[in-house]
């Protein structure tokens, strides 16, 4: 390796040709090839060719944009990424997409058995979770409304037998215990789904997405409805319509590869047609399914069109006058189609995007009861407590 001979070796010539054919082909594609605006696989906007401006040149942002442009618009991008995933798997890796150079670290995903990809759960290193639970407790005490708190465990918590050998995973039951010990007010009920969603009962999670699947949401609905004092409708009362057979979810984006099998996405439909509208910013929309998302990558957003800061789901066939305030993350989006059968109105608020006073909202809208449906991981990761503070 260290002897530099003066004669030219044919294999070096071959490698040189390889390098420059590759580089020049890449350059020409970047210059002339088609550009895409959005990466469905990674769910993000792709960088476009930056405009040459003096200020951008001087502060270095031009070159940053140029580098991002080259990476984002590179030819055969998805194929190269899949190749990289395959290489990592062949080299023995059982998890991908982590980043331990930051605190708190990102765990990435486990490549599990049965074609499942799972979130890696790491122990909490911040007090976000505790602050959130204290926030929910404040909410419970401040409103005094009947209040159900339903934290949904992650797929990797519930299907541990599918995780790779010796895989480390934080036990979310610790958080469940903390919630139970903290939210103890009479009006509040903590709903435990940990046993219900266990894999001995079925597969309640998407293979490639971090959400529970429609059947998981149904199980959640059954337990929650009972706690709320309703008799939940049996499975036979619903048609589960297979809306897509090619759903690649958020977890897949961290482990793009050729051989991942896609998920099926089912939309539940109650056998007796209901007159249900979703009101967002004064606009009424019929039904809860935004089927235009079935043609996109983010198919889970078919449920209620993804997250909105505030929306009201009205069931005109249900006249019991009960108005539920639902504090939630995206897990609830596939739960609402079941739950709305029992309420005249469900006021759905995603505190991450909501900036008004929640207590005034409760007063102004005549809310009769409240629920918080969150994935446990979201409660650990994203601080919503300031939106629940009084005053």
């Amino acid at each position, binding site marked *: *390796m*260290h002897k*530099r*001979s*003066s*004669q*030219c*070796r*044919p*294999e*070096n*010539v*071959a*490698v*040189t040709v*390889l*390098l*420059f054919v*590759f*580089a*020049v082909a*890449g*350059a020409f594609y*970047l210059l002339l090839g088609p550009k895409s605006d959005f990466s469905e696989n990674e769910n993000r906007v792709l960088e476009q060719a930056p405009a040459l401006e003096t200020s951008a*040149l*001087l*502060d*270095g942002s031009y*070159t940053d944009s*140029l*580098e*991002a442009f*080259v*990476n984002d618009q*590179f030819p055969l*991008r998805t194929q*190269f*990424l*899949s*190749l*990289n*995933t395959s*290489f*990592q798997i062949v*080299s*023995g*890796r*059982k*998890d991908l997409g*982590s980043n*331990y*150079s930051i*605190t708190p*670290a990102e765990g990435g995903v486990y490549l599990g058995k049965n074609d499942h990809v799972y979130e890696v759960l790491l122990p909490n290193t911040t007090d976000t979770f505790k602050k959130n639970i204290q926030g929910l407790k404040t909410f419970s005490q401040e409103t005094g409304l009947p209040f159900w708190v339903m934290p949904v465990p992650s797929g990797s918590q519930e299907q541990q037998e599918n995780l*790779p*050998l*010796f*895989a*480390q995973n934080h036990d979310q039951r610790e958080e469940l215990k903390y919630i139970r010990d903290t939210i103890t007010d009479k009006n509040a009920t903590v709903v435990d789904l940990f046993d219900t969603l266990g894999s001995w009962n079925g597969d309640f999670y998407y293979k490639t997405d971090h959400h529970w699947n429609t059947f998981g949401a149904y199980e959640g609905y059954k337990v929650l409805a009972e706690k709320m004092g309703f008799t939940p409708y049996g499975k036979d009362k619903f048609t589960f319509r297979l809306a897509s057979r090619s759903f690649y979810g958020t977890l897949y984006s961290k482990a793009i590869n050729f051989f991942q099998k896609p998920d099926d996405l089912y939309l539940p439909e109650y056998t007796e047609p209901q007159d249900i509208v979703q009101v967002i910013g004064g606009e009424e929309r019929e039904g809860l399914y935004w089927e235009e998302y079935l043609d996109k990558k983010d198919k889970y957003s078919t449920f209620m069109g993804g997250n909105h800061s505030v929306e009201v789901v009205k069931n005109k066939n249900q006249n019991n006058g009960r108005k539920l305030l639902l504090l939630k993350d995206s897990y609830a989006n596939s739960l609402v189609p079941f739950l709305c059968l029992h309420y005249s109105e469900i006021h759905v608020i995603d505190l991450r995007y909501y900036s008004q006073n929640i207590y005034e909202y409760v007063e102004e809208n005549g809310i009769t009861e409240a629920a918080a449906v969150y994935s446990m991981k979201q409660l650990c990761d994203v601080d919503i407590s300031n939106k629940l503070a009084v005053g």
Partner: protein
Amino acid sequence: MSFNSLAFLCLFLPISLLAYYIVPRKAKNFCLFMFSLVFYAWGVPAHVLILLGTIVVDYICGLLISHFSDAKGKARLFAALNIVVNVGLLGYFKYTGMIVTTLNGFGADLPVPEIALPLGISFYTFQSISYAVDVYRKQVPAMRNFIDFGTYISCFANIVSGPIARYSLMYEQIKNRQETTAKFTAGCRRFLMGLFKKMLIANTLLELSQRVQYMEAPSTLSAWLGVLAFTFYIYFDFSGYTDMAIGVGGMFGFELPENFEFPYASRSFSEFWRRWHVTLGRWFRDYVYIPLGGNRVKKPRLIMNLAVVWVLTGVWHGASWNFALWGAYCGLLIICEKLFLQKLLEKIPVFFRWLYTFLAAAMGWVFFSYTDLSKAGTLFAALIGITAPGADASGPYLLITFGPMLVVAALCSSPLVAEMAHRLKDVAVWKVLWVVGYVVLLALSVGAMLNNAYTPFLYANF
């Protein structure tokens, strides 16, 4: 700009080569100088002014040293001026923050300035100093041509992290080098080799190392895996970068000095340092150690000289006390070897000599990689099995998932694989396989670059 980015590979490299080979001989250095300035300005454009300023000052100093070469005192004055300017720049940009933080630790209450480190400053200031000293020593003439001098200091092949090419070595190459197909093609191969080392081996091992560093209380098995991971990571990261630098140099007709000669196959710690980051070791030898008197002094003075050189070597790596400690650790081992350890080593079997050296290097990297000394302490305790469980679940998991890459790294860092490849190099089938291998590895590396666009080289921080 970083070698391991697609923008470099697909845009900067082909364009700069094309321009370089089109322009007439007389304009080649000018062309290279201009592209080097663009390369340098890529990340933080303002820093290019610092580089240009240094080049101007050092250029003038060089001319004056040469002009006054018969009047020792004046020549010495301008050589000293060059050194003061370069050391001053390095001191200001690299160590101000560290000094202020340290003073604050002793009770001072000073605002800690945030000074961004200009790219490659630790490397090009050392090249500049070598220029002044070599001219002063009359080993080589000064550069009369500003463009030539600018090319020497700023050449993008090695400005970011070396190899530190001393002026005496480069003078001829800057003045009249010959670009040949042999150099060019060997350079391309070398460049790709470095890219593979960085993207396929180093980055994976960095992840393992970071995972263990992230743990509050690693088990003994995890701790060892973490130490091994960093040991191989730093080798593949830095030698990968160096391969790319030497490769790029070759494409422009340069022959840059080697930096690594299978350091982990060494059989004493002194030998390790003769094979690890060779150009830095030589620089300290020629410009610090020998001027201090080198070996030809009495024992206490020798120990003193070695201690100074090694603490400086440590501190050069980074503005943080753990690097000083690491330097002191290296110095201590080398002093011990000089005084008595070497004689002992010669009496034990080769395998144990190697083991001692490898472990000594690996333990050194703990000081190097843990800026938080209390965490380094926890790790050492875990390594020898006190205060930590021997193995928890994470140890076997990391072993299974990263073990194969550690084995690959160990094999590729030893001379065995290189020797085998050397022996097979004239077999026709092997040549075909070899080229196919490069195609596959290039595709994998591109995937890795797309997957993680920003994976800087470790030594670009120093």
